[in-house]
């Protein structure tokens, strides 16, 4: 094999096969990129080389799931939808909160370090992960954690692998703590006119029954069949019927006092569908003419960061859409213009503006050509030397998704 031609696809049958493949690639110096459902491959930089695409589609299945223990060991290639179906039969779930669950895999979602809007209520995915097995570049399979919900035995290695984007090894199995599914879900959507925005945000902060997600969505036409203005406040309430009822009632009343004209409610399947579409929109159908950043920070600054993004777009002659996550502090900023070429011409300078404006901005999705012309990560974190050392110790030959990660790791 030579770099530059289409990568060879290898689909191991089991964990041992995956480990053996990595060892063989390390020996021969072939670069390996792990592939799950390809829903979040836009994260990080395009790897410098890709000789082997290691697909996890045959590493499938939910093992050791005893609903009475509320824990499940899941193989990497299992889709999120499959997990939701099997656990759902027992009234349980794992709040992956990730886009495109019919295709997205457990291993890929973990490797991407996906952090969805409901993490403020249910914890980050890393917090629900109680154990893992990873195939390493030396051909070994290393376990960490276990199948119990409390565990302090050695380093919490699973956390190192979450979000490592396949640069340290291939996660082949993940053990999770499951949660009881909320009995009820309700989505409240309120168009936000210019003059009530600040008051509406303050009103949401004062709610006793907190929404599991609170987002201000600006744009995103695919979820725009919700009527109303371009700018919408979206609140998801989950819990018992009584709590959801009170949460939406209180929210409506508080928003009404803040001057919001109307709040529309979607129940049950409608709420679920609406929220799923919204999460899909973080990365899906972005198109070649768009570039989406995620900035992280304090929840109190999320809204202001989306406005700052809007300002940057105006100054740069770009169109902006955004999601301000009032609970987690994420601000999703999507920029676009009429043609790829027009965007590309502005891009290096515009990207520099974005990095200057925000402490933590990484590229989440966008056109491949646009992404190729910038670094997905921005400024290196102060701990980059430690991160480079970790990479060197786990992948001395540098064959795992080379160049994809922070600081060209």
């Amino acid at each position: 094999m030579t770099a530059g031609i289409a990568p060879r696809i290898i689909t191991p049958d089991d964990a041992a096969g995956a480990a053996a493949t990595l060892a063989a690639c390390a020996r021969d110096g072939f670069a390996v990129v792990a592939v799950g459902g390809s829903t979040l491959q836009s994260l990080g930089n395009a790897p410098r080389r890709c000789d082997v695409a290691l697909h996890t589609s045959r590493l499938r299945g939910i093992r050791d799931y005893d609903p009475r223990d509320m824990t499940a060991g899941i193989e990497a290639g299992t889709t999120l939808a499959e997990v939701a179906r099997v656990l759902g039969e027992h009234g349980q779930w794992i709040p992956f909160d990730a886009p495109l669950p019919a295709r997205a895999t457990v291993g890929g979602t973990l490797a991407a370090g996906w952090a969805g809007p409901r993490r403020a209520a249910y914890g980050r995915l890393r917090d629900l992960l109680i154990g893992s097995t990873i195939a390493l570049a030396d051909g070994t399979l290393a376990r960490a954690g276990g199948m119990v919900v409390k565990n302090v035995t050695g380093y919490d290695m699973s956390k190192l692998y979450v979000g490592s984007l396949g640069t340290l090894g291939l996660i082949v199995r993940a053990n999770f703590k499951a949660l009881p599914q909320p009995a009820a879900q309700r989505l409240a959507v309120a168009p936000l006119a210019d003059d009530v925005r600040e008051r509406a945000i303050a009103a949401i902060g004062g709610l006793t029954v907190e929404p599991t997600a609170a987002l201000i969505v600006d744009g995103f036409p695919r979820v725009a069949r919700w009527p109303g203005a371009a700018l919408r406040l979206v609140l998801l309430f989950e819990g018992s019927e009584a709590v959801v009822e009170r949460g939406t009632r209180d929210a409506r009343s508080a928003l009404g006092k803040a001057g919001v004209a109307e709040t529309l409610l979607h129940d049950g399947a409608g709420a679920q569908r609406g929220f799923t579409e919204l999460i899909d929109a973080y990365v899906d159908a972005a198109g070649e003419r768009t570039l989406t950043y995620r900035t992280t920070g304090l929840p109190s600054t999320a809204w202001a960061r989306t406005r700052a993004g809007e300002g940057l777009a105006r100054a740069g002659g770009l169109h902006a859409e955004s999601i301000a996550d009032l609970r987690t502090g994420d601000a999703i900023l999507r920029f676009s213009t009429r043609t790829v070429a027009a965007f590309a011409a502005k891009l290096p300078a515009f990207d520099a503006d974005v990095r200057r404006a925000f402490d933590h901005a990484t590229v989440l999705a966008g056109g491949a050509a646009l992404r190729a012309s910038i670094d997905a990560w921005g400024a290196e974190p102060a701990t980059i030397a430690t991160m480079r050392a970790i990479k060197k110790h786990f992948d001395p030959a540098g064959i795992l998704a080379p160049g994809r990660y922070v600081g060209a790791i």
Partner: protein
Amino acid sequence: MVTSLASRLLEALGPDTVRSSPEDLAVYSYDAYSEGHLPSAAVIPHDAREAALAVRIAFECGEPVVPRGAGSGLCGGAIPACGGLVVSMVRMNRILNLDVRNRRARVQPGLINLDLSRAIAAHGIFYAPDPSSQKISTIGGNVGTNAGGPHCLSYGTTTNHVLGVEFVDGEGVIHHTSLDDPGYDLTGLLVGSEGTLGLLTAVDVRLMALPESVRVAVAAFPDVESASEAVSAVIAAGIVPTALEIMDRLITAAVEAHYQAGFPLDAGAVLLVEIAGPRDDMAAGEAAIARIAQAHGALSWRASSDPAEREALWASRKGAAGALGRIAPNYYIQDACVPRTKLPAVIHEIGRIAHAYDLPVGNVFHAGDGNLHPLLCYDRRDARAVRAVVDAGTEILSTCIAMGGTISGEHGIGYEKRDSLSLVFGTDDLAAMGRVRDVFDPRRLFNPDKIFPSGAVCGEVRAPAAVA
């Protein structure tokens, strides 16, 4: 050399910060584990800068660095097993920054766990991890062992509440990690690393809104097995209370004698349940759990939403181990975790093992998490009993592992269980952890002889000797 470490520290930090006389150092030689070892020196830094300087000097002298919070750890994590420098965090006990709106705080590692929640309660927020030692144990120590507590059933353990840390490396350089940073999750690695990767000098913690309502119930059961079955059934029904705790007859008697909190004395086991959340859920939640308890043979059910009564019940539950002093001159508390459905079987096995070794055993445990704390009662002056305790403890751990469990749920591995780690993990698993150690601490000077099986680490440098 010992004198060189102490004299260099004295020169750099002064006598107010440095301790070097043998009588002063004796206090830093042990923690709540049964063995100890004298350090060469101890420092009590006022801030991160002093702590970093002390670490640099120790490393330049080739001496180990051992962090110390309250010294309340049960597994010897704070023992200077290979001598060296103990860094006591008692003076670094402040809340450096509190952001009520965003529910986060930066605190120094020496801050006592309960002091944090008390200091912020007026803002309607709290710090969720609440190990039973929270009246004395420190946030830094809690982070080191990824401490749990009764309420991690629904709130999660310490690691779920740490947003970032500040730590000192072997060159005395201060680093800061944050979950907001892109790149590898160094925060997640450092939490639970028991001081073996660097010295913590600050912690960014996540705070939570105090629940609108809290209700505690006490149920009496004929025996521990039936109480455990009830706990399994509650979880299986999709109910996750904030806490589900069990005390057996022996523990309940000791606790009642000491605290008079009103636990039933005629029962074989007591189940303590707490539910918290919006007030709308309280009545239905309590009724559902009460129904399950009754279906599993509960003899009585008493619920309360009175804060004072609740406080008293929790204070006595958290004081359970201490109250055992009324029954036996010494006790050995084990910490293990099993899948929740294995609780009844493992409790039965623990009883059998204790009986075989002729040791009285009390069980007080975080039942909802499957986290067991059997307490074996003995008299330290009886050499036969000491041997029996060690052997019974090992047998209990092996039983838990055989049932799919692990050897520590919340206390950590420390010095005590380092050789048992290989019962849980194989060579390849430990090698992956070793790579991380190689990155952070290639010289193995940060808290050596902890967590990892003994043999190649500091035993070669200086054999640790038991002093207690």
